[in-house]
């Protein structure tokens, strides 16, 4: 077991790679009641074409299957795992993103038992035709719920406009039609391919004894047999650099229009530390241009073009990356024009301004460490991209004016920009 110390933050992280390839991290947190654990696989909605384990040909699977599998893994021959967790005083959950599926629990008692339940249920799939059919009605209602949600439609509308080929543009839950094609055999195929321990990461944060917990996990894994780890072959989508379409308008049953401007990342091939630096520099640029302390935010707010729903974010994964900026607005066209203008007028950032934004981001990072959920989920996301959550502050500190200018000149290109709007349906 390795110990990694973060002196300034007064935190210690313990790490071990088990024989079967599983990465285990433990971050003891004194003073908290709750222990929070996530068990995550590098498998999300974008992994829809791959060579299934034991086969040789690429295979396309129905959209939404990673999310469907996440739902079904909770069901066992003797009932629902939720029941078991709640008997042990824990609350359990799971989520599927573009690139990850995570299973988690939090509990203030019976931590060892709950951890055992978490690992065991994720490592023992039980799918039947009957339970698969039953789930279709439930997920159909989840999809319908999002269909009526204008913010979700806006978000996916934007991504759809950015990407030509890459499956990031497909809704994580799939469609009512696509999930109807899912069978128990397909679920097993996906499970066998992506749920090998060597493709997964276990993170535990809370008031725990790291030596005992690590030993428990070693023993749990030693009791089970796993096949040898194999490289997973995923389809590599050839994605053009520029956006697929410049503008999309979605009519919905709403009263207030919404507008987002998206910037599609040009180069997502960076790895590790370099990727972290690029991602942070882009976020600093957005903070500088659109943060509440920026002249642009003040101007747009005073003009009545934005309100407190206004937000921005940049995120980058292995094969895709994008920024989004916007919110509710009475005039979506005017807001789009203003946001684009602000982006294109950027030339440089003053040294003082850069320092101010760094300070703000360092404070925000400290605040996020109050949250066990944030630590576990973000640590995992960073680790899957060969980055480290705890390098955020040191990396921020190294950013220079030239770094910010460099990301701006790379990303701010008309061909990389797209606009998506939700507007009230014409009567």
């Amino acid at each position, binding site marked *: 077991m390795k110990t990694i110390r973060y002196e300034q933050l007064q935190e210690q992280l313990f790490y071990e790679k088990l024989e079967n390839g599983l990465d285990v991290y433990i971050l003891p947190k004194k003073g908290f009641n709750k222990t929070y654990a996530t068990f995550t696989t590098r498998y999300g909605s974008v992994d829809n074409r791959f060579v299934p384990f034991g086969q040789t040909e690429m295979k396309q699977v129905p959209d939404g299957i990673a999310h469907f599998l996440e739902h079904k893994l909770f069901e066992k021959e003797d009932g629902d795992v*939720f029941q078991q967790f709640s*008997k042990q005083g824990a609350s359990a959950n799971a989520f599927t993103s573009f690139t990850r599926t995570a299973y988690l629990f*939090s509990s203030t008692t019976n931590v060892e038992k709950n951890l055992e339940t978490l690992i065991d249920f994720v490592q023992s799939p039980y799918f039947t035709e009957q339970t698969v059919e039953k789930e279709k009605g439930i997920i159909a209602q989840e999809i319908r*719920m999002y269909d009526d949600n204008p913010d979700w439609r806006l978000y996916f509308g934007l991504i759809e406009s950015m990407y030509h080929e890459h499956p990031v543009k497909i809704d994580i839950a799939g469609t009512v039609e696509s999930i109807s094609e899912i069978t128990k055999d397909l679920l097993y195929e996906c499970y066998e391919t992506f749920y090998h321990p060597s493709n997964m990461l276990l993170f535990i944060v809370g008031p725990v004894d790291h030596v005992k917990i690590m030993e428990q996990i070693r023993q749990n894994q030693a009791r089970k047999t796993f096949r040898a780890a194999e490289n997973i072959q995923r389809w590599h989508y050839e994605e053009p650099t520029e956006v697929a379409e410049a503008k999309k308008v979605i009519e919905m049953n709403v009263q207030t229009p919404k507008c987002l401007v998206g910037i599609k990342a040009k180069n997502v091939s960076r790895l590790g530390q370099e990727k972290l630096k690029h991602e942070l520099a882009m976020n600093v640029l957005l903070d500088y241009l659109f943060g509440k302390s920026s002249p642009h935010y003040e101007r747009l707010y005073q003009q*009545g073009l934005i309100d407190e729903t206004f937000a921005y974010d940049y995120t980058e994964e292995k094969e895709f990356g994008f920024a989004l900026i916007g919110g509710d607005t009475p005039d979506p066209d005017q807001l789009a024009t203003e946001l684009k203008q602000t982006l294109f007028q950027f030339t440089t950032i003053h040294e003082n301004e850069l320092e101010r934004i760094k300070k703000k981001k360092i404070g925000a990072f400290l*605040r996020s460490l*109050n949250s066990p959920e944030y630590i576990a989920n973000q640590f995992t996301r960073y680790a899957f991209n060969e980055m480290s959550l705890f390098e955020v502050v040191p990396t921020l500190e190294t950013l220079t004016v030239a770094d910010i200018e460099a990301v701006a000149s790379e990303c701010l290109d008309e061909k990389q920009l797209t606009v998506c709007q939700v507007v009230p349906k014409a009567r």
Partner: protein
Amino acid sequence: MFQEQIEQIQGLRLHLIPTEKYKTNTIVFKMKAPLRKEDVTLRALLPYVLQSATKTHPTMMQLRSYLDDLYGATLHVDLMKKGEYHIITFRIDIANEKFLKDAAPLLSKALELLHEILFSPLLENGAFSTKIVEQEKRVLKQKIQSIFDDKMRYANLRLVQEMYKGEPYALDVHGELQDVDQIDAKRLYAYYERALKEDDVDLYVIGDVDIAEVKTMVERLFSFSPRKGNALNDGIRKTKAEVKEIIERQDVKQGKLNIGYRTNVTYNDDDYYALQVWNGIFGGFSHSKLFINVREKASLAYYAASRVESHQGFLMVMSGIEPKNYEKAVKIINEQMEAMKKGDFTDEEITQTKAVIRNQLLETIDTPRGMVEVSYHNVIAQRKRPFHEWLQGIDAVTRDQIVQVAKKIELDTIYFLTEKDGENQ
């Protein structure tokens, strides 16, 4: 467990909660007044005007730059309703300098800033700045309108409006759209001066802080005149008449079913803990009857849950369903309610629910926000329930008490937001 020390400093109640588990310190200020139609829109506007500018930081850009300089201190305001009270909250969260390379003290700066926001707002001619008030009126109108766009929130709001028609609880915390335009800078400022004198005010400081030092700082900075406290008039609540059924049609793909009940049990009552356990078995969790029967067994919904409002005695069931399944879903929900009244639940369900509630309570006090929430119930209610009493109280609930509570719960209103006639057919 958490330790809370309460000090009365003239009209202000100061709550000090020392803890070493966070990397930041949190300050929360709350102003509470009875919900009234004539005040609610003013109160909805007030904190947003106050957080826009101060005498020293007269523009949003200047105020927000100052927060950035304080290592990204955050300033948030929000509104909530607890029973028939309207509560305005200001929240500042600031880094603990011991985790920073340069160690200038930050907490005192945050308290000074809160003082400035409350007592030195940007004024012109003895009132708030007209420009800021007009700006925030526009934002408020947009916010009220946007509730319509979020169908889940809209359905919640509509149920409450229908069920509590004519009662203060029907009011939404964001006020009334048609009242926004009648507000001007002068009237708002006059209201604010009154609220500062009359509202119940509570200040929380949570973090790795020295109690005596913070107390001295607060005494030096804040001076709220003593106040008589604004207890609600009792006995004005309507009793239930006939069950109302409201069907509203819009262009939606999923129907939103919201059912309202009167629990006739509140935080002040002896059987409050029994109500919590009752709700846990009925619909509060993923092992509850609603989740199991509406979602897992009948595959009708993705979510099916119930929620209790502690001070109003209001219970709401929420589920998103296919429009054609309305009757089926209502029938299943009614059956679960009946099962609870008949005591048709196992001892294991009781034990399981108690374990989950206990866990939820302990998790709640892992966040500064959660600690304030737990403590503030005791500000609102007459009855005081310290945290350790919660744990014991839940544990002591018996099967009999749960059935007794079940029998008090009355169905009041069924609200269904559904598709327009003839759609998707």
